[in-house]
């Protein structure tokens, strides 16, 4: 008995397209139907009033509180205080400097996309850019007036803390993770002690230590920059979390990968740098980005040691006598800015995961 070949057909109409999607995801069971209705009701209660407040009834035009009439949001406040939100107390006439730094960072990012792989030039930029940014922001040389770090604030400060924290905690975290994997007992126990100790302490404590307790150990008259102390504290704190993320990546690598690298004659460092770490980091990207997103938001804690990041700027600006009672607009705006950054980070991580996925291209 031989059967003739059969032609592939489309699935039945109700099983494909948007109808099938709605049936499967929204109306598949009585519970599901109930939750769908409940969800729609909640959305109905939240979204229209918010849209009414934030857009329909809102005031966009004007220069003072008096221009804000009606019950809607007063975006005039945000518009007038935008420089404060973005740059804190950075002198008005010098704001081109942070703007230039941010513009060049964006330009370099776009440029880096065109240079493939880990070109040595990229590595050079990672070292040179922070120096360039520091010289430009801090000044005091090349004829630029000095702007002390205590004047930095707002989004600028948030970005400085977050990017320094991310860029520095990453290599330190890798070294700690390797240390924790090490066969040498002293290195291993030092790494384990460091990681577990730091993870046992809240970030607020670390910042407080860095800002208040650390100076007690300095000799009289030595004044170590407050922002630098906070940066060191945050970097060392995050490094422990990065290390644990990467360690979980190591555990996902099959033993055969180590053996194949050994059998090919690779040294320990070659094996780690060329075979194990690239794979370990790849599987940890979602976790790593999660850690970096919380780092980004945790920067707000520097408020506790008297640095004014983006969130702290709400308090500062809404305490302006001309703009009292504008906290809501400030918080909504700041939340939106935070969301733009964190969401971009998670989009980037998704893209990176896809790009590095070598399973089915």
């Amino acid at each position, binding site marked *: 008995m031989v059967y003739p070949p059969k032609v592939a057909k489309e699935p039945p109409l109700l099983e494909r397209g948007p109808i099938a999607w709605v049936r499967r995801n929204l109306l598949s069971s009585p519970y599901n139907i109930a939750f769908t209705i409940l969800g729609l009701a909640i959305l109905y209660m939240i979204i229209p009033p918010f849209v009414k407040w934030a857009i329909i009834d809102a005031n966009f035009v004007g220069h003072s509180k008096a221009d804000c009439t009606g019950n809607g949001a007063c975006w005039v406040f945000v518009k007038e205080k935008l420089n404060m939100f973005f740059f804190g107390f950075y002198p008005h006439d010098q704001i081109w400097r942070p703007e230039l730094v941010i513009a060049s960072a964006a330009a370099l990012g776009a440029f880096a996309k065109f240079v493939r792989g880990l070109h040595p030039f990229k590595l050079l930029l990672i070292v040179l850019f922070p120096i360039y940014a520091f010289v430009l922001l801090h000044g005091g040389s090349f004829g630029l007036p000095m702007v002390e770090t205590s004047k930095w604030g707002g989004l600028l400060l948030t970005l400085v803390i977050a990017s320094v924290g991310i860029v520095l905690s990453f290599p330190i975290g890798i070294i700690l993770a390797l240390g924790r994997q090490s066969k040498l007992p002293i290195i291993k126990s030092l790494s384990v002690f460091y990681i577990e100790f730091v993870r046992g302490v809240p970030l607020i404590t670390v910042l407080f230590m860095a800002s208040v307790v650390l100076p007690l150990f300095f000799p009289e008259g030595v004044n170590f920059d407050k922002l630098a102390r906070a940066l060191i504290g945050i970097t060392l704190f995050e490094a422990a979390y990065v290390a644990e993320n990467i360690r979980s990546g190591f555990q996902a690598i099959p033993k055969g990968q180590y053996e194949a690298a*050994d059998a090919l004659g690779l040294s320990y460092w070659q094996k780690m740098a060329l075979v194990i770490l690239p794979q370990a980091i790849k599987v940890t990207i979602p976790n790593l980005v999660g850690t970096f997103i919380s780092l980004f938001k945790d920067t707000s804690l520097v408020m506790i040691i008297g640095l004014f990041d983006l969130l702290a700027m709400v308090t500062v600006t809404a305490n302006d006598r001309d703009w009292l009672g504008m906290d809501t607009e400030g918080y909504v705006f700041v939340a939106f800015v935070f969301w733009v950054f964190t969401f971009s980070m998670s989009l980037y991580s998704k893209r990176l995961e896809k790009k590095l996925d070598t399973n089915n291209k």
Partner: protein
Amino acid sequence: MAEQTQTQTETPREAQGAPLPETKEDKKAIHPLGEPIIQIEKLNKWYGDFHVLKEIDLEVKKGEIVVVAGPSGSGKSTLIRCINRLEEYQEGSIKVKGIEVNNDVKNLKEVRSNVAMVFQHFNLFPHLTILENLTLAPVWVYKKPKKEAIDTAMYYLEKVNIADQAHKYPNQLSGGQQQRVAIARALCKSPDIMLFDEPTSALDPEMIGEVLDVMIKLAEEGKTMITVTHEMGFARKVADRVIFMDAGQIVEENDPETFFHHPESERLQLFLKQILNH
């Protein structure tokens, strides 16, 4: 013979006009066995309290094809993994080309540059393309110029009939293709000795043939090979010697003819009956 003195510089033998041997006897005439290249003496190994290798004595000559057979857990994989020190051992000695396989970093480097291994699960590096898998060790460990490493890699990919996949990633290939890539990767450092650790055990039946064909080709070219395998057809066709291991010791070793048709020990007779008559 010229072949004998040629150790490091692996040049295409077909290109030299040397005919591929038709039978095992022909092969022996073209590539007579050389000096002992692996010497294992009184090797003992324990996993904790478990005695996995018991007083192993084994000598392999240059150009010899040795097949190691035996039930699972008999220590055959452990034995060949000791030769390139993927496993450490507690007593006895292993010498590869006269170099002691021990903790000494310099010795280890020397040994691993002479011994290549092919694994049951291929162990290709999934984040690198096929070509990158092959050039990784030559470029980083043996400091070959990139161009030369790529040429060598393409030569061996050609040889295992997979050159057209050079820019794909390992997970895009079938198991048989991956294992052939793994063999090409092992060949890229021109090793004197190839260790095969159950190279076909993880493959679908229809892919075993293509991998065995590559291995047979290597064997016919006079490469020293130690192969742990259950493929008795391969053993019969190319092995100079078959070793039967059970419970951590070598029970019997013989030429394939005697091994398969006149097994001496009762244990081997039983084993052959189990694997051949089903």
